[in-house]
């Protein structure tokens, strides 16, 4: 069940997109509880202020020929609704999906001057449907601010956190990522659970992902092959906690 909001300065497109969206939703057995179209972004924002909506889908034209651009409109919507779905409608020339994705967490896009509008809308709605079905099983994740956007890392993917001394940055090692952020180990420790332990002045390790401990070199070997150092002082405690977690 979704509410669909469209905003495009040309009514022709609004009609066309609404029709195609209804068709696609029917094909996916997805119910559209309400569908509203606007030619001016301010109207959409006013409506949202009076009727806040969670779990809505927004189809926004990038070039609205108004004071508020499609991107600004999206960022205001995103600010109010962290969990809604934003899709951009644009021409091939104007497309800058990585930028949209980065700035407002846009989900998908539709290109106007491409032949297969119907397939594109179908694909977008299916994407939304899949996401809605899987959100139920959301596991614990770390959401960190990084350069104007957020990165999301599920806790079980975290391997260890490393401080970079010279510049006070934090390097996050995870299964699929290696990300530098501006944070301190102390700030992070508060947000992590007990399976994380600070095994060194500059490292916090995920005990669940240690594969073996090398006693002589005081190194923790993670299950993907990476090595995490352990300080002399904290070595015994680290081993103890690791073994405790094994049971």
């Amino acid at each position: 069940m979704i509410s669909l909001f469209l905003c495009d300065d040309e009514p022709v497109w609004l009609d066309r997109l609404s029709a195609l969206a209804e068709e696609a939703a029917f094909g996916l057995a997805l119910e559209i509880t309400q569908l509203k179209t606007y030619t001016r972004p301010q109207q959409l924002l006013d409506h949202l202020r009076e009727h806040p909506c969670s779990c809505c889908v927004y189809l926004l034209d990038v070039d609205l020929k108004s004071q508020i651009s499609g991107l600004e409109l999206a960022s205001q919507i995103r600010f109010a609704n962290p969990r809604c779905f934003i899709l951009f409608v644009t021409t091939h020339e104007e497309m800058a999906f990585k930028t949209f994705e980065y700035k407002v967490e846009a989900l998908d896009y539709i290109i106007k001057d491409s032949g297969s509008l119907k397939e594109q809308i179908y694909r977008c709605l299916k994407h939304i449907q899949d996401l809605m079905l899987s959100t139920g099983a959301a596991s614990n994740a770390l959401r960190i601010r990084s350069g104007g956007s957020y990165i999301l890392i599920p806790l079980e993917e975290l391997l260890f956190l490393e401080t970079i001394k010279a510049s006070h940055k934090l390097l996050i090692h995870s299964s699929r990522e290696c990300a530098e952020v501006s944070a301190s180990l102390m700030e992070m420790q508060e947000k992590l659970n007990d399976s994380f332990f600070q095994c060194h002045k500059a490292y916090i390790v995920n005990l669940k992902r240690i594969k073996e401990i090398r006693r002589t070199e005081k190194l923790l070997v993670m299950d993907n092959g990476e090595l995490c150092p352990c300080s002399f002082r904290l070595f015994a405690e680290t081993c103890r906690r690791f073994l405790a977690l094994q049971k």
Partner: protein
Amino acid sequence: MTSILLPVLTSALLYISFTGLLPESPKGRNRLLMCLGFFLISRLLPERIGYLSIPVNIAFNVICLLAQKKNFLTNVVMSLSGFLLTVMINYIFTIPMKYLGYSAFTLHGKYPLPFLLVQIAATFLLFCILRRLVRVSRSALIIKSPRSIQLLVLAEILISVIVITVNIIYSEKAGYPMEILTYNGILISFFVLSTVILFYCLYRILRKDYDLVLKQQEQDALNDYLLRMESLYEDMRLFRHDYMNILSTLRYYIENNDMPALKNYYDTKITDTGKQLSGNDFLIGRLGNMKITEIKGLLFTKLIAAQNQSLQISLEIREPVCEICMDIVKLSRILGILLDNAIEASSSTLDKQLCIAVITGEEAVVFLIENSCNEIPIPLSLLMEKGKSTKLCHEGLGLYNVKQITDHLPNVFFSMSSGSLFRQTLEIRKENHSYDFPVSM
């Protein structure tokens, strides 16, 4: 006891003097072998062949450098320069010692212990100071200069070393009378000093030259860019012309209500014109928003390289980028490495995708580079270590160098992630920004 201690100290002195000015001092086994070699030479040879052990030491040093293979020319020049400076120090200390009544020394005679210790300390100190002043790693510039200059530098050093060595050997044969010693000392110090000054001037000139070469490359890239822009403009002009014609033809068919002809005209003429307009050259126009010329030139060069590899490229620079809170030379270096890696990785895949986005926000400017890639066999953070690479037989220095730069910049953040596409993110935060609590669940 002294028969062991003196050669040990002498070999230490020789080791310091030959390796003190090297860009990269020998490691581990090489270091051990060199010290052992010097020790054996100092222990066994002076009694038998006297001062000819000096050229033996020099030759041994050159052989060790040859075995290292890397940067042979630079290493030879720097280590022989170290040797010359040591000789100069030796003379500086010998002369007062001689006045104080100590007997004459050679570089490989039986030194009294205190003299040897003082010389080691003085040499070590001098080299530490020099390393600070000149930043010896820059001596690698010698490699980048033209062949003729390289040979001249090498010849100068070799001649100096030969002259000084011969001087030492024959002065010693004559017994080092006081006057010769003093005059020798003054002349040699003068000679070595002037050689050092000469080399320093040469270093400055080479650096300027290198900067000019870089500037020239940037200029060439921008010129190429201008040419492309002009040809794009020409394409645009022709298109407008066609467009006007098409519109008037359409108007004609509409006025005459001639639907079949209209349909036919649309299907044949218009879709053709549409095809003209797509293509990678239009991407290059997007560089207009990158207002920093060095980066514009760099991106342009890399885009052309990517085109040559037939990659599917997408470039996004939606907002103008005028200012970046980071040294542009370092940024160029990092972006160059990241883009080269992305282009190379992408060209060996089937998809051949490459996406570059420059995103400006309130807090930071972000460079996003995504490319299709084959399976990466090692964990991502290990890619940033020296010697690790996804390519076979490759040095793996690129990302290591990037990390070296970013580790010392508190407002620059480099991240990588792998998934369907490999993504590299370089975030440069704007300086005067205070951050909210960055972590949440």
